[in-house]
């Protein structure tokens, strides 16, 4: 279960960072179990610290999590027949790891009975969410005893790099990433993390524009294959 292994330190670091940001244990655990989406929690935390307008923080987190609409749509095409209540329960457990593993499993075994598919989905989902919540708890409780020389704070960007680097293939993905990174640094002075939000949205539209207009236009010159679709986080 290597996918669960990487979630534990990630949750641990969120627990540490949340404590440093001034959240108490109840607040940290409420955030980690109600939102249950790591990248958005890391994005919103500094905004909370700076007293950003609530709607802006919610919007920022929602943009980070917008990829899950894609997961939801994609998973719905292979989802077994099940009640609305079951689907409402399953939505909570939809995350990066569970999407990737369940989608592959449902595609590979289309004839498996619904109970088998749902068992797999809730197994992976339950495990990932529990490890995330447990990691956060440990981080919030024992985090202060970890020596600063371990530089655990830096495991956050390192983890994001490890996720994004392999999917940066093709012109559109690379330009989307460059615009996102560059604007985010240039606009760092804007209040309440607005710079990040603008950078992220501009990066997304850059990728879209490059794929839609620039690449077809360059096609005759380049004849390169289309970039692989990004997924993950």
């Amino acid at each position, binding site marked *: 279960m290597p996918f669960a292994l990487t979630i534990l330190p990630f949750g641990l670091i969120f627990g540490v960072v949340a404590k440093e940001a001034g959240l108490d244990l109840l607040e940290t655990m409420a955030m980690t179990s109600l939102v249950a989406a790591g990248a958005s929690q890391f994005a919103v935390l500094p905004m909370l610290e700076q007293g950003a307008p609530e709607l802006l*923080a919610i919007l920022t*987190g929602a943009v980070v999590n917008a990829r899950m609409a894609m997961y939801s749509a994609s998973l719905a095409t292979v989802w077994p027949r099940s009640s609305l209540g079951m*689907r409402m329960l399953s939505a909570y457990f*939809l995350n990066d790891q569970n999407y990737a593993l369940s989608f592959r499993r449902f595609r590979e075994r289309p004839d498996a009975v619904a109970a088998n598919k749902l068992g797999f989905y809730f197994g992976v989902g339950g495990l990932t969410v529990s490890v995330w919540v447990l990691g956060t708890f440990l981080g919030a409780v024992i985090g202060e005893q970890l020596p600063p020389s371990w*530089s655990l704070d830096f495991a956050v960007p390192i983890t994001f790099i490890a996720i994004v680097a392999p999917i940066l293939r093709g012109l559109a993905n690379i330009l989307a990433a460059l*615009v996102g990174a560059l604007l985010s640094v240039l606009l760092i002075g804007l209040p309440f993390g607005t710079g990040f939000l603008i950078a992220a949205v501009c990066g997304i*539209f850059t990728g879209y524009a490059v794929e839609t207009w620039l690449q077809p236009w360059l096609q005759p010159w380049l004849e390169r294959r289309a970039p692989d679709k*990004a997924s993950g986080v």
Partner: protein
Amino acid sequence: MNEASFWIVVLGLGAATYLIRLSFLGILGGRALPAGLVRLLSYVPVAVLPALIAPMVLFPKATGGSFDLPRLLAALIAFAVAAVVRSALAAILSGMGALWLISAFLP
């Protein structure tokens, strides 16, 4: 941190994230997402993550926001390993390992 606004954000973002997750599973019926929207959403990870990463690498919180060469080098090493080896675990281990080594040798 403001108590009330913390809970507004956590409940608001929790609800928004849940609805995003539920969106298509909730209505089901194999209804396809419009192709343009799929294309737009496919760029969320590659745009959002670098926008989160870049300031963390260039202005790390641990150094009070001032540039730190070991951190930049460690990030570049992690990036190279992730791009070449395509293993998240290998990239994380080599990035953190590089940071510890470089910090130990650079004053």
